[in-house]
């Protein structure tokens, strides 16, 4: 399959980490390892949020090589009933990180460290502790990976199918490891279902990667060049990250739709995800009306925490967008640099050829070779820039959008509550008038309506409180995940820069 060739960009630092691990992984077949070896690191890193209750992500790299991890890993792998060849190799390296099931003692104490960094209103100390407790139970053993993009079908009806592999020890799944084939619209369909169900509760639902008509058409048409390969690779990585975020989320994981997505062999074609369908238009209209209503609601919140956080989110999104644009241009310039260096190397080689002084000629051709090597280095650097940094930023921009959506949900709930309250008020007025006008039968009806609306009011109020709590919890979780993610990715990026510098030095020598 062409898959392995596309999987190169994910990072170099991983290469070092894998070696000690693969020695420990001597259980299974070595064939087919190539495909997954390259993959394991992105999988690994993205899992940090969920184990890092107080464990710093960077340590995972070093800890991955310690023997304690190795031991727990080996026991883990032996506990796997099913040994289907490839999947295990994929998870061989990954499971090391996860097997650091945070012993609850260290988790609790380090969990406390996180709170100072979050600005919280003093009025709700107990709920914070509650949230802490829940964080501690966050560790669970579950990995997903998206691999092997394959083109199925031909012509305009072709599509890319991705293999979604899961390995888990959670009891709610039928097997320990399993995999299914999914296509892009399936992922979108999952997102739709989840958002319909959960966004009302105020959960932050990770958004999937965007549709790209141009990219997909290129793939469909069958242009077998590097740009479509790149596109497929990007999409695959993005889908993987998306799934990982979904399974990291404790309440989303419980959702039967998610389980179905991961387990069921054949999913019904997700309709309503096609851009030009009726559902697509409906969505656009809804979005427009939402935008309008957003502008008119002004929530007067007793809890200023939400306001602050919303503002922070918005300004952060702005900054991230700027950063993303700059990183994009860096990637482009590096690619340009690559191309130019290659061309320059060739012309230097020709110059060396035409130079008749042999020593100089040799020197010039050596220079040409060096420049050539530099070009490959630059290319790799550009790729790593892109895959590590730019994608991270893009993801977070989308996530921040989802966070904002969450806040909006809360506002809508509040609005509903207020409306119910005002209706109740009106009903009470009606009742008072009737009382005064002394019409007993209508009075009874009015009283019934009042009780009904009172009930609604209390319910909405409770809804609102609930959603506030959920949003708060979600947000904290999100912040934590985000900070870990950023740190780890940036460290990874810097390490890749480091590596490429080292290689530059070697080349120059």
């Amino acid at each position: 399959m062409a898959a392995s060739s596309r999987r190169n960009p994910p990072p170099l630092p991983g290469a070092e980490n894998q070696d000690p691990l693969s020695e420990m992984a001597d259980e299974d077949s070595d064939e087919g390892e190539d495909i997954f070896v390259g993959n394991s690191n992105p999988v690994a890193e993205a899992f940090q949020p969920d184990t890092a209750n107080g464990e710093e992500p960077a340590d995972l790299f070093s800890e991955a090589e310690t023997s304690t991890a190795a031991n727990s890993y080996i026991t883990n792998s032996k506990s796997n009933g099913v040994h289907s060849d490839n999947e295990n190799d994929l998870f061989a390296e990954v499971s090391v990180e996860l097997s650091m099931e945070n012993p609850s003692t260290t988790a609790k104490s380090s969990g406390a460290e996180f709170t100072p960094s979050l600005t919280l209103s003093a009025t709700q100390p107990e709920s914070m502790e509650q949230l802490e407790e829940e964080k501690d139970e966050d560790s669970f053993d579950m990995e997903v990976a998206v691999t092997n993009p394959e083109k199925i079908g031909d012509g305009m009806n072709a599509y890319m199918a991705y293999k979604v592999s899961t390995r888990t020890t959670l009891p709610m799944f039928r097997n320990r490891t399993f995999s299914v084939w999914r296509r892009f619209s399936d992922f979108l369909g999952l997102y739709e279902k989840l958002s319909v169900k959960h966004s009302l509760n105020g959960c932050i639902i990770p958004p999937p990667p965007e549709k790209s008509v141009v990219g997909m058409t290129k793939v469909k048409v069958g242009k077998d060049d590097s740009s479509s390969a790149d596109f497929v690779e990007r999409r695959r990585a993005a889908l993987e990250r998306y799934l990982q975020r979904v399974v990291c989320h404790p309440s989303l994981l419980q959702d039967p739709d998610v389980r179905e997505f991961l387990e069921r062999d054949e999913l019904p074609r997700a309709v309503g995800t096609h851009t030009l369908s009726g559902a697509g238009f409906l969505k656009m209209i809804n979005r427009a009306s939402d935008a309008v209503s957003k502008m008119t609601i002004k929530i007067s919140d007793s809890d200023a925490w939400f306001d602050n956080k919303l503002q922070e989110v918005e300004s952060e999104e702005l900054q991230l967008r700027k950063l993303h644009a700059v990183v994009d241009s860096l990637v482009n310039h590096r690619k340009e640099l690559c191309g130019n260096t290659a061309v320059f190397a060739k012309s230097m080689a020709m110059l060396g050829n035409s130079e008749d002084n042999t020593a100089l000629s040799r020197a010039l051709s050596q220079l040409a070779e060096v420049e050539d090597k530099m070009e490959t280095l630059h290319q790799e650097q550009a790729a790593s820039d892109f895959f590590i940094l730019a994608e991270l930023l893009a993801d977070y921009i989308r996530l921040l959008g989802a966070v904002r959506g969450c806040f909006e949900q809360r506002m809508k709930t509040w609005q509903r509550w207020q409306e119910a309250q005002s209706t109740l008020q009106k009903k009470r007025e009606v009742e008072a008038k009737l009382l005064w006008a002394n019409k007993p039968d209508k009075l009874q009806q009015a009283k019934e309506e009042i009780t009904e609306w009172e009930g609604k009011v209390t319910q909405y109020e409770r809804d609102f409180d609930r959603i506030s709590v959920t949003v708060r919890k979600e947000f904290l979780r999100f912040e934590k995940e985000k900070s870990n993610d950023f740190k780890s990715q940036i460290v990874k990026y810097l390490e890749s820069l480091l590596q490429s510098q080292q290689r530059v030095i070697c080349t120059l020598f």
Partner: protein
Amino acid sequence: MEGEPSPRSGAGFHQGSFPLAVNVDLQTDATLQVDISDALSERDKVKFTVHTKSTLPNFKQNEFSVVRQHEEFIWLHDSFVENEEYAGYIIPPAPPRPDFDASREKLQKLGEGEGSMTKEEFTKMKQELEAEYLAIFKKTVAMHEVFLCRVAAHPVLRKDMNFHVFLEYNQDLSVRGKNKREKMEDFFKNVVKSADGVLVAGVKDVDDFFEHEKTFLLEYHNRVKDASSKSDRMIRSHKNAADDINRIASTLYTLGTQDSTDVCKFFLKVSELFEKTRKIEARVAADEDLKLADLLKYYLRESQAAKDLLYRRGRALVDYENANKALDKARAKNKDVLQAETSQQVCCQKFEKISESAKQELIDFKTRRVAAFRKNLVELAELELKHAKGNLQLLQSCVGVLKGDT
């Protein structure tokens, strides 16, 4: 260095004396030493202070300085080219015109966009632009100096009267730039010359050495041109990438200052790191520019001058052969034989003189070229290595700090 290059104020940039350009390998000769000790950049021209130290008797003093402008250098160069006596020598190529336009444009754009950036960004970009301006300035001074030194080192050219006037006459040489008509004349002359050149190049040379040189130079010239333009492009993309890193650094900084969570501290540190890496990357690009691109550009011009020499010789050869044919014809018709003979002799002398000196010149050219390339390439490699190591160290320490922190 004082003053700021701003299109508004027109203030000057002073330049202290600085080392001889590295593109040529010259022996300094105590009898005549020329250098550019100072340079002042004004609104649209640059004034060079040419300083001479000489023990030759024909100068009034032993040490003196004059102020010259670019047009005067060009005048000197052209006077060499037009002098028939020097047809047999490689005339050192004229220095390129000082070109601050690009830099000035950028500065202007920066001034206009002042409102839209933060104070720090603005000062940073202004500093960068100033550094760029300074670099261009240094380069143009170096090129003018190289020209003068080449002339001074050449055993025949250094004795030229115009050269001495150039060095000594401390009033304005009142050399005006060519007006439009003269420029048109030049243009036509060039067209004719290139057509002629093609004709002359077609003539096979008796002497193997020159034939070989001809083919070699032609090829070499083209390849150097190619390499020079490609290296320019490469360096430009390098600079662009460095600029981008700069912008990343400042955006990270803004992100970092928004909050005081540890993520933000993290951002601040990374932003610092990027600032430093960017400086290194920019320096790498600048070094490449200086050592490699300049070298290639200079040898482009020199190989053109060598080609010109060959052309002149070829022309003389053709003239000689024509004169021979005319003599034969005259002898056959037995008319104007004396005239034909004298003209043939003149051509013969000219041709032989040119051939002699040309051979030596071309051999010198080769040695010079090899030495210059070697020196520059070695220096370039060393510098790149140094920068890469510096970069590595920076990255290592930063990653260490970040990992230790988190």
